[in-house]
């Protein structure tokens, strides 16, 4: 009976919690490196992300291997030499919406959002702030954001031979459509 009660309480707690959680498994994160020599772009369409509207928390889990490039060899080098995806298979972000009070998740509309938290790439954790748009429509949330990161912050080494082809800062674009989690 005691066990049953605990189970019941747990179930209640989880359901109560999940009403405010929105999720996607097919979020899009892309990055862009621009130099006079070469432009490099890669897209990942398999990003998993959760937003907890109650607490204002937002998390991302990004598989490095799921970034796809125009050129197969670039993709191989990206995994093998730069991001070392066997050692560090995932990039993650764990943060909070800092202007949560200005966003009404119950009302359709487009809101400017600022997110602050820890971005981990290549095994290196850095504090990161990003601004973006958070749109609410029919109870669903869509997030877009663009920000830049410095490769050296994440200890991604660029050999001098290709230094002219790879930008020191990389522009990152996020485009995720969340569904309420049942």
């Amino acid at each position, binding site marked *: 009976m005691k066990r049953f009660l605990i189970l019941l309480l747990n179930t209640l707690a989880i359901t109560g919690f999940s009403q405010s959680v929105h*999720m996607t498994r097919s979020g899009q994160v892309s990055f862009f490196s621009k130099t006079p020599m070469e432009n490099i772009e890669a897209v990942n*369409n398999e990003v998993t992300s959760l937003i907890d509207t109650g607490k204002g928390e937002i998390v991302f889990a990004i598989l490095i291997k799921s970034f796809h490039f125009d050129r*197969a060899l670039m993709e*191989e080098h990206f995994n*093998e030499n730069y991001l070392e995806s066997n050692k560090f298979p995932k990039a993650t972000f764990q943060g909070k919406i800092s202007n949560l009070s200005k966003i009404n998740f119950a009302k359709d509309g487009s809101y400017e959002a600022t997110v602050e938290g820890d971005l981990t790439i290549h095994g290196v954790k850095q504090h990161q702030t990003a601004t973006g748009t958070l749109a609410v429509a029919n109870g669903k949330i869509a997030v877009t954001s663009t920000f830049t990161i410095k490769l050296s912050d994440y200890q991604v080494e660029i050999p001098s031979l*290709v230094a002219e082809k790879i930008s020191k800062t990389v522009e990152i674009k996020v485009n995720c459509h969340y569904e309420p989690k049942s």
Partner: protein
Amino acid sequence: MKMLEDESKEVRKKDFTTATFKTTRLINGHSAENVAPGVLDFRISHRFGFLSSGAYELFGLDQASMRMGFDYGLTKRWMIGVGRSTYQKQFDGFTKFKFLRQSNQMPITLSAVGGIMYKSLKFDNPDQINFLTSKIYYSGQILLARKFSESFSLQLMPTIIHYNLVEGVNDPNDVLSVGAGGRMKLSKRVSINAEYYYQLPDYKLPNTTNSVSIGFDIETGGHVFQLYVTNSSGMTERSFIAETTGNFFKGDIRFGFTISRVFTIVKPKL
């Protein structure tokens, strides 16, 4: 965050092992690596004379032999290629197919390579009745490869070479051999490779030796440079597996190098 981890475990996909070797050739022979779909790989290989030939021949550099080849990836598993060697004015073509791909659920990569070679050198005795097929050779290989760790990969390659015509009455038409090779990464962009083909004693041509090669792969952006020493002069299966004559351990060593450059012809859909 914990919840997210549980979520991502549910959808854990097959995770294919990549970059078992740096390029599609170990040194002389094929590796289990394929050219990506839509990518053209232009390869130029050079082989020089024996280092033991001395200073007069500039340690073999006076005798250069080369092969140029174009390889193309049709799908993730299937690639084809053609080439032309100066050695016996030989044309060659091959097709390579990956049947198994190493992943978190599969311990090895298994590929099959089929090759055809045509020696376009003129017949020795043009006056007798000659058949075109006498100058055609076939090769078949199974490649069994495994990437053991980030830096270490091994490969086994049982091989059959078929000769339509052999020189001696007692020479076998089918040359059988088992190759073994591996690579060890020295840094992110440099690896050391070794390759050895053992010929079965009853199924080899007379006065031939086993092919031995040791070399480095150096990768720079879109190019891979392969620098090596070997006792083989040919650059196709038939010529380096079945027709090597030098003894590697008695100084019959040649310097050789390959430059591989890839071009993306068809961009993948992102």
